[in-house]
């Protein structure tokens, strides 16, 4: 249009597809590996097409687990991870939406201070305060529990900021009309604010679910029992340094299983995902 170009932009398409293929290649290989015999893989003879062990490998992975390392069925690990991700996502949303509501719609002493306290948590991800936080959790007796796994991660302010920003854009007239109609703060919240926040909640849910599912350092520290392992930690434990002992096909199958839920969430909820990413970074 602006520049005379007859036909589609071949160069651009080529670049984009190269990018897509490079992105997808590691995952493709992983999938291939999860369908072959372990000996084929270990010999370095693995071909680039799927093998015939798909059902067998995945069955063993999900319901039995690796034979030589932890003997934990990956299916159980997935359940752990799912619980963790959901608790983190839902917990964070609940806490931050009511906090944002309090900060925006009320006037009270120390309001500003409270807000800043919450805001500051953005500055420091958990990796920076791991050992002291670990000590606190340990002294509360929460090691190897879901509570210990999830609650410290709910602390940060991402959601609160998002909701506060959003609440600021809700017209004052809505509140005034509600008041005239006789609604108190709880009513207003449930009947008006919550429905209006639906897209923001969806967007935040996608981001937080991925965040929770993909947690590494924290579960690594907090859980020691095999039955509390999350899938992301579980994988690491399967890779033993003497590679001859690593059951690569199980590792790869586990990797596929670890990727599917968050990727599925991103693809199915893409619109909210994009919105969530953009909004939480402001």
């Amino acid at each position, binding site marked *: 249009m602006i520049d005379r170009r007859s036909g589609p932009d071949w160069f651009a398409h080529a670049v984009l597809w190269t990018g897509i293929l490079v992105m997808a290649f590691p995952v493709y290989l992983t999938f291939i590996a999860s369908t072959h015999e372990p000996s084929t893989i270990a010999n370095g003879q693995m071909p680039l097409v799927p093998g015939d062990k798909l059902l067998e490998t995945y069955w063993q992975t999900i319901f039995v687990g690796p034979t030589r390392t932890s003997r934990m069925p990956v299916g159980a690990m997935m359940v752990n991870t799912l619980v963790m991700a959901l608790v983190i996502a839902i917990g964070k949303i609940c806490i931050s939406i009511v906090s944002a509501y309090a*900060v925006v719609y009320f006037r009270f002493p120390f309001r500003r201070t409270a807000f800043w306290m919450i805001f500051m948590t953005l*500055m420091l991800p958990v990796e920076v305060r791991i050992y*002291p936080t670990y000590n606190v959790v340990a002294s509360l007796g929460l090691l190897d529990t879901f509570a210990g796994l999830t609650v410290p991660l709910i602390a940060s302010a991402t959601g609160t900021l998002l909701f506060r920003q959003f609440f600021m854009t809700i017209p004052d007239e809505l509140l005034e009309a509600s008041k005239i109609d006789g609604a108190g703060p*709880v009513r207003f919240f449930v009947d008006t604010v919550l429905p209006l926040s639906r897209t923001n909640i969806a967007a935040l849910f996608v981001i937080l679910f991925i965040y929770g599912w993909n947690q590494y*350092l924290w579960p690594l520290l907090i859980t020691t029992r095999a039955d509390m392992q999350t899938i992301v930690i579980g994988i*690491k434990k399967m890779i033993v340094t003497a590679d001859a002992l690593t059951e690569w096909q199980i590792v790869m199958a586990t990797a596929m299983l670890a990727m599917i839920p968050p990727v599925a969430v991103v693809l199915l909820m*893409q619109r909210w995902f994009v919105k969530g*990413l953009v909004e939480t970074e402001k």
Partner: protein
Amino acid sequence: MEKRAIFRQRWLPYLLLAPQLAITLVFFYFPAGQAVWQSFLIEDAFGISTEFVWFENYQALFAQPQYYRAMANTAVFSVSVTVLSLSLALLLAVMADRQIKGANGYKTLLIWPYAVAPAIAAVLWLFMFQPSLGVVARGIRALGIDWNPLLNGTHAMILVIMAATWKQVSYNFLFFLAGLQSIPRSVIEAAAIDGAGRTRRFWTIVFPLLSPTAFFLLVVNVVYVFFDTFGIIDATTGGGPAKATETMVYKVYQDGKLGADLGGSAAQSVILMAIVVALTAFQFRYIERKVHY
């Protein structure tokens, strides 16, 4: 920015804020405060008594060559990943922006790596580049290069950089694409009429207008490399070989695991905290200035 219409209750807001404040205090401020306090202490060998030693821990830290090593590793890591992932993402975004229809399709096909855990990404790349059985490793060895990230520190660093970049490109791509799509078409058309060809238009008009986005991504990427890459390192090289891939965050983890030097580990944490605060503050201040419209 204050709301004009509010509620008058006194106690309800405190109730609403309580959960978040409680968790924040217990799991954030208290540990952070502990870390700062501990960084000024030395524990004796038996863990019985502690002594307040002001900045000795910090001094000891800066006397360790390993600490400088960790800083160097972190720096090399951040710069490489940032530069690589930003340029690749920009290229892809510019190409995608050229498509009038189909830009959304490409978006879907390129943003999903964001959902993959860093540790998983690491496992994928580890698998490809495993010296003995990795598909790509085979190819590299066939070229005559003795590829071995288990023994060669540089190779290990390259592996980790590739895994981290792979993940980060999709995030950057999303933001660059959004930035490109927010430039009004008429400005580009005006430049075309003014006589600027495609390349010139990009460097004199598009890129300057993209700079707030680029700047923002720069800071985010650096923070990402500092912290979120812990999983990648742990799952692939474990900080090795011979600490070749040990970043500052990883060092905190390693030193604390051994349990011997609580003060030193705390001091490291405090330094990292300071860096993040500086980066975030820097970002807030300068981002606002540069927004054009």
